[in-house]
């Protein structure tokens, strides 16, 4: 109908009402005058005029209804009344609003993180069509290695690897893709612009930017002919690089950059804020992109899996359909190239999900936990509303006795809940913002996009919907209850101030629910805590204290081969070893927990089974620096160089799994038929290379002096010091520059720092879940305390009679505690059932702990029962102290 007019009239309704009154007044006067003229006495005329007119008040009401004002008026009336009642009870209002705000705040904070990390689209056009592509090694032998020990959550599917360059062309031919590009991080030594620096870079195929749908802001993207070995060297730089290092000058295009000792012409500058999939979530975004220019060697080698792949699906092609097409290609490649491809299958997943990776599981679990907190908060608020409704039974029954309908009464109470919900929502969102700041501050590094968590329409509407549904669902119970008041009975009992047995029943049920919900959270927190302490207790197998590691990436141009690199590091080892406070030095391709290399290998005499252990190329000082004990045979020495026979040291797991516990010394390894024979000369202790949550894998340690034989680059340097290893960093850097003044030293970290960082995500999720459980228990305690206090106050006269009849205080305490015990037992029983159902969703986050671990259940039950009984003791003792005279006088 004419809604705008109604609304406009609503705001002028006072003026309209006045105008109507004036019209009606005029009418009455004119009629009275007419009647007077017809011969009535003036008083009689006025009276007759009014009778003829009818009840003006009723007509005014009708007019209000015509304009639809009454609905609004009534709502505003309810609202005013509600706000007045809430202001009159500031304690009640503060507690309810705070409870709601706490629940909503926690939920809002976690949801905004979930939103930032997993729900918001990636910053690329039509990013929902982007998928990440990888290869999975389905080799049965590797499966056997991986399944030794409990599966771990973090780390993605077993056997996942990056993609072989040679397979790229075959995947590109897949009809499901509009485009497919490969990229790989490839930091560059930047020289000729002040101190040599290593800057984050990527090597990408020429179509990388067009697959992502991003065009350079200045200049152009790469051309196909630039993505070939021997082509002109070109680079595209980030906006930030251009601003910071090139001063944002427009003539930066076409300028040349010295990267790894070679000049690169800048052909494009990316738009501000561009993040490649590789650098999303990193504090150091990629600054320079170069063409991958794969050599014909790598284009022909299907056995090395080196590059990341992003692909864009054609419109209307689903991930499932694309996966099916891709699997067919993998199978046919497996038939064509059984040697390399038999066990490898390409797999895809939406890029966004893949980037969120392992953290999405913990975020979902935390979101679920925060949902439970919202529920507990709601139950608490419902509980508080019930108390309040009970306190106002008298008011309700008087109003009903005076003719108020049940509906208006319920509407009044619901409006009050709504006021509370809106206040709670506002406070909750404010609190949520604060908590979010805290959350992003303590969040472990490497959660993509969490730093950009903030309020957007999704976060806001989720909070609003939760708050409003709280108001309706949990305001409904007390409102319904109040409307069921039988005025006569209520007025009779009102004198005694009782709320009736149904009140106690309702509130008992709510408290049981609260206890059950908090038990679920406690069990969850317990499981994570046990996992955390298990992880912390894991022995790495090497000593991390007082060891500092750094990356010294020698550019190919200056150090073309393995021998040149080894010469550099040998020189460096000698110089650093001579520094005071240095105990041992080591060079390797990668130090533990800093990446690694794995490759196929055969044991001499068994060319049937190919294995893929981890490979390290290490200098003789490696085992001493990391404190890895030698168990049998000999260690590597400086004599194991290019002029002597290739040798290797293996670990126990290698001996166990690949040699079936035969003595490794005397055995030899081959990287393939016709490849040089690598003699095993020693056995060292097992270590967990990938950190505490990683598994012990078979390891092969090759000699750093023989790396010319293998596709591996020495790049990591580590020092064990007598004191604080940080104190040595400057001295070590000086020694590096004394050998080569253009050589950057990067990624300097102590082993302890690395371990700490690796534990950060687990610590984060455990800490948060423990905080949640604490909040839940606190809310539940408030609930149980409230319901028992209430029930004691209800039974005051009964308890008074008992005391008067000679019941000792202990008996009274026992009476109340028995009631509490029933409640707690029911809550715990329900909670155990709930936890059993829900904690299985945590399984992936647990480390060597089952979701049904009885320790966690027992601790949670004991803890909850203990605090609940303590909370119950206070009202119980109050009941025992009741003065029978006072209690009976109340009767």
């Amino acid at each position, binding site marked *: 109908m*004419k809604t705008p007019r109604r609304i406009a009239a609503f705001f002028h309704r006072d003026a309209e009402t006045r105008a109507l009154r004036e*019209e009606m007044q005029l009418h009455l006067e004119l009629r009275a005058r007419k009647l007077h003229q017809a011969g009535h006495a003036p008083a009689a005329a006025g009276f007759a005029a009014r009778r003829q*007119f*009818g009840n003006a008040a009723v007509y005014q009401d009708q007019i209000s209804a015509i*304009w639809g004002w009454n609905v609004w008026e009534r709502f505003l009336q309810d609202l005013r009344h509600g706000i007045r009642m809430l202001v009159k009870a500031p304690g009640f209002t503060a507690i309810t609003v705070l409870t709601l705000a706490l629940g909503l705040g926690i939920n809002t904070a976690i949801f905004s993180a979930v939103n930032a990390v997993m729900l918001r689209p990636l910053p690329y056009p039509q990013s929902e069509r982007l998928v990440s592509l990888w290869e999975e090694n389905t080799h049965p032998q590797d499966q056997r290695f991986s399944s030794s020990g409990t599966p771990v959550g973090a780390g993605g599917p077993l056997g996942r690897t990056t993609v072989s360059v040679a397979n790229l062309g075959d995947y590109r031919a897949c009809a499901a893709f509009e485009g497919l590009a490969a990229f790989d991080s490839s930091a560059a030594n930047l020289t000729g612009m002040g101190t040599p620096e290593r800057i984050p870079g990527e090597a990408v195929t020429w179509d990388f930017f067009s697959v992502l749908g991003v065009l350079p802001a200045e200049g152009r993207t790469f051309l196909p002919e630039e993505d070939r070995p021997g082509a002109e060297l070109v680079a595209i730089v980030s906006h930030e690089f251009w601003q910071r290092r090139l001063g944002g000058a427009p003539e930066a295009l076409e300028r040349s950059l010295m990267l790894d000792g070679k000049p690169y012409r800048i052909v494009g500058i990316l738009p501000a804020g561009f993040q490649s999939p590789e650098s999303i979530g990193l504090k150091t975004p990629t600054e320079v992109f170069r063409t991958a220019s794969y050599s014909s060697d790598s284009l022909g080698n299907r056995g090395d899996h080196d590059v990341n792949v992003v692909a864009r699906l054609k419109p209307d092609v689903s991930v499932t359909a694309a996966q099916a097409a891709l699997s067919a290609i993998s199978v046919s490649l497996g038939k064509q190239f059984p040697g390399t491809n038999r066990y490898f299958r390409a797999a895809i997943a939406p890029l966004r999900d893949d980037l969120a990776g392992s953290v999405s599981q913990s975020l979902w679990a935390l979101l679920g936990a925060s949902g439970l907190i919202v529920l507990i908060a709601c139950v608490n608020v419902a509980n508080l509303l019930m108390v309040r409704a009970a306190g106002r039974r008298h008011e309700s029954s008087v109003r009903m006795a005076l003719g108020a309908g049940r509906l208006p009464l319920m509407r009044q109470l619901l409006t009050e809940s709504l006021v509370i919900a809106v206040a709670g929502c506002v406070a909750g969102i404010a609190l949520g913002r604060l908590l979010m700041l805290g959350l992003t501050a303590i969040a472990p590094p490497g959660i993509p996009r969490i730093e950009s968590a903030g309020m957007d329409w999704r976060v806001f509407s989720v909070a609003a919907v939760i708050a409003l549904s709280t108001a309706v669902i949990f305001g409904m119970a007390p409102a319904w209850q109040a409307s069921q008041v039988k005025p006569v009975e209520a007025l009779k009992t009102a004198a005694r101030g009782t709320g009736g047995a149904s009140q106690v029943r309702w509130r008992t049920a709510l408290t049981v629910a609260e206890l059950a919900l908090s038990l679920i959270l406690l069990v969850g927190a317990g499981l994570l805590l046990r996992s955390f302490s298990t992880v912390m207790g894991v022995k790495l197998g090497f000593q991390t204290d007082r060891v500092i590691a750094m990356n010294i990436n020698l550019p190919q141009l200056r150090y073309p081969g393995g021998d040149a690199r080894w010469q550099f590091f040998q020189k460096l080892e000698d110089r650093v070893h001579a520094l005071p406070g240095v105990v041992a030095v080591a060079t390797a391709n990668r130090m533990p927990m800093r990446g690694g290399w794995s490759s196929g290998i055969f044991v001499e005499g068994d060319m049937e089974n190919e294995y893929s252990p981890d490979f390290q190329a290490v200098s003789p000082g490696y085992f001493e620096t990391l404190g890895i004990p030698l168990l049998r045979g000999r260690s590597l020495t400086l004599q194991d160089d290019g002029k002597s026979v290739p040798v290797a040291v293996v670990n126990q797991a290698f001996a166990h799994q690949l040699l079936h516990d035969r003595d490794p010394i005397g055995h030899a390894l081959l990287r393939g038929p016709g490849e040089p024979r690598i003699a095993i000369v020693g056995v060292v202790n097992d270590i967990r290379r990938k950190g505490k949550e990683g598994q012990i894998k078979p390891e092969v340690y090759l000699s750093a002096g023989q790396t010319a034989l293998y596709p591996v680059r020495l790049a990591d340097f580590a020092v064990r010091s007598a004191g604080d290893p940080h104190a040595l960093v400057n001295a070590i850097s000086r020694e590096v520059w004394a050998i080569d003044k253009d050589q950057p030293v990067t990624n300097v970290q102590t082993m302890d720092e690395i371990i700490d960082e690796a534990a950060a995500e687990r610590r984060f999720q455990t800490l948060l879940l423990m905080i949640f459980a604490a909040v839940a228990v606190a809310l539940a305690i408030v609930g149980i305390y409230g319901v028992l206090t209430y029930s004691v106050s209800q039974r005051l006269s009964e308890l008074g009679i008992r005391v008067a009849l000679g019941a000792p205080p202990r008996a009274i305490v026992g009476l109340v505690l028995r009631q509490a015990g029933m409640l707690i037992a029911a809550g715990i029983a329900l909670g155990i059932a709930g936890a059993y159902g829900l904690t299985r969703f945590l399984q992936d986050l647990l480390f060597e702990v089952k979701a049904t671990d009885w320790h966690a259940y027992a601790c949670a039950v004991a803890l909850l029962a203990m605090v609940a009984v303590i909370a119950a003791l206070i009202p119980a003792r109050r009941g025992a102290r009741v003065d029978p005279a006072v209690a009976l006088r109340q009767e």
Partner: protein
Amino acid sequence: MSAAKREEIPPGTLEMLILKTLARNKPLHGFAIAEFILETSSGVLQVEEGSLYPALQRMLLKDWISGDWAKTEENRRARYYSLTGEGRKQLARELDRYARVSQAIAAILQPV
């Protein structure tokens, strides 16, 4: 009071009567509308005069009439109602409906 026997206005016809009244006159205020209906029907049709006002408001909301404040001859403020275009169409519709209904009633009442 008039000597004629007074009758309640049949339900549903008040709005039609008001529309017709306004169609036959210059803008009128509420009292004048009531008077006009009373006089034109020779005192037979009697409104409970107050009920005129909810009806007028309803018609204002539906845009059938418009109301403008002006002074009466005695210099009192009053709202003068007049027909809008929409009101004219509504009047035609109501007259049409009324004619059909009364014809139907007449047909039934006709002696065989």
